[in-house]
Every structure is written in structure tokens, then in C-alpha cells.
């Protein structure tokens, strides 16, 4: 069982930045540049485009995947995950290095690749399956299973432009779920679809993994990775920075890459503040314990800020700022206690604990910035931007604000509001 399914050796991919711009320039402009080159050279001008900056999307990566393993790949956007998958699926070629593969490989980088809106669901199933490499006889054999999995029996002959997005995704994933390759490469395709269907897809991928096939799985959803993968690679800036069991890799990712770094501390020299003030640490706690992993949407989240006033006589008012994963401000909160407002603090060490109530923030990643300054006109003496972060998830257990609704709730907050409904006639 120690046979290798995939072997990646010293793989690099270099993009020339700005290549896209020069490339999409018109033929005539290119001809013009070519024609001007000798003239420029005669005039002693350097030919343009010599020092093109290079982007190393992948920098000398090597790893092996034994047959039957489900390997997760996680990392920030731009860490090189997608480039790696594209090279593995032969869509683009590496700049150097090579990849060995044992067995039939299929990749699913997008749900519904090649779907055509004017064709019926039936036609699209055949087309999509053929594009994904399924032989025609096999498509015919599995067609009914595919339609049943998607629960689309009654619409299968309707052009898919009349389908809702959810229906398209269901049909597309049903096709993909019935591919039977030895190696399956999946990129972030489960981010779509309703919760119920997502669950069935996960079960399906899990079953594929358990049947002795090799799966390479890229996702931002760490809980999905931890459910499916035995081993996980953490990528950052084109390197593999960690390669271990999934739980350990996720912990590494959370702590080192700051995606959900729940603790940050500074020595007096590093402290992002004035000399009369030292910010020591910011920590996210649940019931007094440092957070490890995602936080249930129902729980209160505490943020503890520790700092020192090194001189007498400054007004030091701590302030909490929460941003969502796209960098939008969710809210800002100041300590409203009059004891600390507009008062000069004595020298000493201080601690502020601020509680974000449960059932307030929606699911997602949040980053926390902390500042300390004067209260009115707010003047920052200290600002620790994005110093800690946390993620909120919904366990779908009772006690959340969604009632029985299983779809996605949009928006940054989902507070527990008071509803009073009654029949009036």
C-alpha cells in the first residue's frame, strides 16, 4: 500500500508579471515595438521590457502522495494552491520540475465546466462527463444514477438556462461525483450549493477516499479539510511550509499564518506604541481559555487586552475594531466606563476584557485590530492592526438564530433579535 500515486519533484512555476498586458496588446503594437527596436538600439535606448518582474507562484516544491491517501492543501489566496492544481491537472505547464502520476487522473477545478445554457440538462451531463474524461458507454450506464443523485429527474430535458444556480451546481456535482478516476483532484468546489447537498457531496468524496482512491483536495473550509483529509500541506508564497497530519497542519496554519491567530504579544521594543505606553498582548478567549479553532456562533467571545502605562498622566482608552474577511469594518467598540474616560491613568499595568456576545456575528473569519488613545477627539497612541483573528462557525445545533433554516444567511451579523408575531385577524 506504500505505492505512490503522485510524485511531485522540484516543481516551479514562474509568471512574468505584466505578461498579460503585453500579450493582449494588439498585433500592430507588437509589430510597432519590433520595428522600433533597432531604432531604439541605435539611439542607445534600452529595449523596453528587459527587467520584467517575475512572480514565483510555485518555488521548488516536492512531495509524494501514497495511493489511497486523501491529501488536503490549504493556504492563503495566492499561496500557490491553484497553480499547483492546474499543473497537476496539466492545464498549464511548470517552468521546471516534473510530476509523476500512477493511474487515471481526473480533476474538478470548477463545477460544471463546459456547461452550455442552451442545451438540456441531459445534453450537458453527457458533454460535461465527456470533458471530464468519462467514456460514453460509462456515461450511459451511470446516467440514471447521476440524475437521481442530483434529484433532477423532472427537469432533465429542460435547457439549463432555466435552472437556478443551485440546480446547475447540483447537476454538475452529480456528474463529477460519478467519475471513477484513480486520482481525483478537487478545488474548492464545495463552497456552493445548499447545506444538505453539500453534506451529500462530502459523503461522496469521503466514500471515494475510503475506496482506496487518491484524492487531492484544496479548500478554505478547514472543517471540511479536517473531516476528509488524513494529511494536509500548508502552502505560503509558493512554498510548502508545513506537511503533517491534518489537525497539526491546521493548527500550524492558524497560528503561523495568522488566519485565526488567537494570541499576539509584543516586547516593549516591538510594541506598536509611544514610549509612555506598551501594548503587551491581545488574546481571544472562550470562558477564560485561549481559543483553539473556530468558535461556535452561539458563544460569547472575549478579547483581552493587556498594556502598561509607563508615565503618569495620559488618557488611555482602549478600542476594539472588528473587520470581516474582505476587510470591511464590522464594528468599533470603546470602553464606555466613565471611570476610565477622560481621566489620566496612573502609571501601572492594565487589562481590559471586552465581550462580543454570542449570536451576534455571522459565520466567517474576523480580524481584530486594537488601538489605545484619547477618547474625545480620538487620537491613537497605539495601533495594532490585524493583531489577532478568529473564525465563527455554525454547528447547526439548536440555539442559533436560524431556526430550522438550512441555507446561507448573508451579512456580517446575525443578531438574536426579538420577534413578536401573532395572528391579527
Amino acid at each position, binding site marked *: 500500500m506504500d505505492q505512490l500515486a503522485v510524485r511531485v519533484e522540484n516543481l516551479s512555476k514562474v509568471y512574468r508579471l505584466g505578461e*498579460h498586458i503585453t500579450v493582449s496588446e494588439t*498585433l500592430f503594437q507588437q509589430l510597432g515595438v519590433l520595428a522600433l527596436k533597432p531604432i531604439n538600439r541605435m539611439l542607445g535606448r534600452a529595449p523596453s521590457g528587459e527587467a520584467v518582474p517575475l512572480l514565483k507562484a510555485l518555488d521548488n516544491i516536492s512531495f509524494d502522495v501514497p495511493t489511497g491517501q486523501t491529501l488536503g492543501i490549504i493556504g492563503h489566496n495566492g499561496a500557490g494552491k491553484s497553480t499547483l492544481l492546474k499543473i497537476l491537472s496539466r*492545464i*498549464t*505547464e511548470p517552468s521546471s520540475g516534473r510530476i*509523476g502520476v500512477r493511474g487515471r487522473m481526473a*480533476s474538478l*477545478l470548477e463545477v460544471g465546466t463546459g456547461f452550455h445554457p442552451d442545451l438540456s440538462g441531459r445534453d450537458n451531463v453527457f*458533454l460535461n462527463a*465527456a470533458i471530464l474524461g468519462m467514456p460514453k458507454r460509462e456515461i450511459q450506464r451511470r446516467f440514471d444514477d447521476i440524475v437521481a443523485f442530483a434529484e433532477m429527474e423532472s427537469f432533465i430535458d429542460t435547457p439549463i438556462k432555466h435552472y437556478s444556480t443551485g440546480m446547475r451546481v447540483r447537476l454538475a456535482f452529480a456528474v463529477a461525483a460519478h467519475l471513477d478516476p484513480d486520482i481525483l483532484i478537487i478545488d474548492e468546489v464545495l463552497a456552493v450549493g445548499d447545506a444538505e447537498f453539500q453534506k451529500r457531496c462530502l459523503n461522496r468524496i469521503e466514500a471515494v477516499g475510503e475506496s482506496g482512491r487518491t484524492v487531492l483536495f484544496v479548500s478554505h473550509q478547514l472543517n471540511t479539510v479536517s473531516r476528509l483529509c488524513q494529511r494536509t500541506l500548508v502552502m505560503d508564497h509558493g512554498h510548502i511550509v508545513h506537511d503533517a497530519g491534518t489537525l497539526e497542519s491546521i493548527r500550524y496554519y492558524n497560528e503561523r499564518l495568522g488566519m485565526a491567530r488567537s494570541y499576539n504579544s509584543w516586547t516593549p521594543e516591538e510594541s506598536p506604541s509611544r514610549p509612555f505606553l506598551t501594548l503587551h498582548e491581545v488574546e481571544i478567549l472562550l470562558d477564560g481559555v485561549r481559543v483553539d479553532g473556530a468558535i461556535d456562533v452561539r458563544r460569547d467571545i472575549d478579547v483581552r487586552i493587556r498594556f502598561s502605562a509607563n508615565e503618569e498622566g495620559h488618557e488611555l482608552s482602549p478600542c476594539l475594531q472588528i473587520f470581516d474577511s474582505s476587510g470591511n469594518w464590522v464594528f468599533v467598540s470603546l470602553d464606555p466606563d466613565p471611570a476610565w474616560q477622560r481621566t489620566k491613568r496612573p502609571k501601572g499595568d492594565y487589562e481590559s476584557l471586552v465581550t462580543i456576545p454570542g449570536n451576534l456575528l455571522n459565520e466567517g473569519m474576523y480580524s481584530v485590530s486594537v488601538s489605545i488613545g484619547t477618547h474625545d477627539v480620538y487620537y491613537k497612541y497605539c495601533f495594532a492592526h490585524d493583531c489577532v483573528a478568529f473564525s465563527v462557525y455554525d454547528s447547526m445545533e439548536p440555539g442559533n438564530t436560524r431556526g430550522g433554516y438550512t441555507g446561507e444567511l448573508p451579512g456580517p451579523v446575525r443578531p438574536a433579535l426579538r420577534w413578536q408575531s401573532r395572528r391579527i385577524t
Partner: protein
Amino acid sequence: MSSNEMRYLGRSNLFQYFSEMWVQRELLVFLVWKHVKVQFAQTALGVAWLIVRPLLNVIVLTFVFGRLAQLPSDGQPYLLFVLAGMLPWAYFSSVTNQGALVLLGNSTLITKIFFPRLFLPFSVAIAGLIDFLVTLVLFILISVFMYQQMLSFSILEFLVPLVLLLSFTMGACMWMSALAVDFRDVRHVTGYILQMLMFAAPVVWPVALLADRVGEWAISWFAWYPMVGVIEGFRHVLFSREGSLPWELLGPGFISTFVVLVTGFAYFRWRERQFADVV
């Protein structure tokens, strides 16, 4: 290749390149089928377009060049003369035109999945044969019923200009589709170039006219343009002309087509590694 061997992905040699295409040939069938089906989805006339398109084309050309301009037509009815010319020309121009766009139009496929990229221009060229066949049947019907000319042409002789037509079209298609990925102006220019090429080819005028007005010497140069041999070859067969095929026109056409085909393939194969990064 046994599934128990580790095989290394990478640049394949020509043999691997074509055997991979052979393994995936079903996909080519599907792409052709999609191309055809999509063309007729949501059209009021549907498949009738296959007949209406060439018919309208030929009627307009006959009126303008046959009636108004009184161009000679080798002693044939002008309608038949121009239809025999349009048969290969319409194939060449519509396939080249669509071929120039086929990679750009399928950019989502190219960036999301690996498959032999040549299938895209191939599928356009194969789907175009349907139009070709319909036009051919149309020609036979008109010739037999309107002009009472019984056709008796040799299939073997018919294949010669057909092979030349397909090879030249494929060569042009590979060039244009790959160029269009790198240079977006190709798609604007294609229609314009094709229009000029059409009047440069003996579609609406007979080759004899060129010999007559310019001189015999012009024809030997002109024959390097493959569509000359193609069109005159088809006319020779379809009008059951005496003697052998016009090899003096077909020969140079085959040579220049070979060059276009080989360079087109080489260029396509060179550029296709970057399609996914650039398209």
C-alpha cells in the same frame, strides 16, 4: 501503458501527442455534436438555415455579378457556376472565421480542464462539413432539376480538391485560433481578410478571365493560392469537364497548403502550452 507504472507528465513527443488524441476521440465527437446543436438551439428556422444560407448567398451573388456585372461563367449558368465556387469557399471562410474564435470562446474549458486543445479547431472543421454536404446536395438538386444537367462525377476526382480544401482550412484554422489568443485584434481582422481573400479567389469570376485580362503568366503565380486549385478542381469535377484535373493549379496549391498546415500545427503546438495562462 500499464496503470501500475509511474508516468511523468510533460512535453509529449508527436506519437504520444496523437495517441492521446486518439484515446480521447469520444470527446471530439461530443464537441462536434455540441457545436452543431448549439448552432440550431433557439433558432426559428432551425436546420432550414443550412439550406437558406447558401441559397440566399448564391442568389445575391448571381444577381450582382451574373446579371448586373455580366461576368463570364465558363459557359455554365451563372447560378451553378457561383454555387460550385461557394461550396468550398463557404466552408473555408466559415470554419476559419469560427476557428479564430474557438479558443477564446472556450476559455473556461481551457483554463479549467486538460484535453487535447487541437480538438477545438478540429470540432469546428468537422461540424462545418455538415454545411458543406448540404450545399453539395443543393448543388446536385439545382443542377438536375433546374438545368437538367445530369451529374456523373468521379468520387476519386472529387476527393482531390476536397483533401486540399480540408488541409488548407485546418492549417489556416490552427494559425488563426492560436494567433487570436495572443493578439486580440485577429478576430476583428479575420472577417476583413476573408472578404478580400474571397474576391481574390475565383469564386464569382472564372480563372479564364484572369488569363484573358492579365495574361497566362498570372495564373502560374496565382495557383500558389490553394483556394484557386480547390475551386477550379471542384468545378472541373462538378461540371464534368473534359480531361484530367487542373493539376497545374492543384499542384502549387498542395505545396503551399503543406507549408501552411505544418507551420500552423507547429505554431499551435508551440503556443498551446501557454493558452491556459494567456487566454
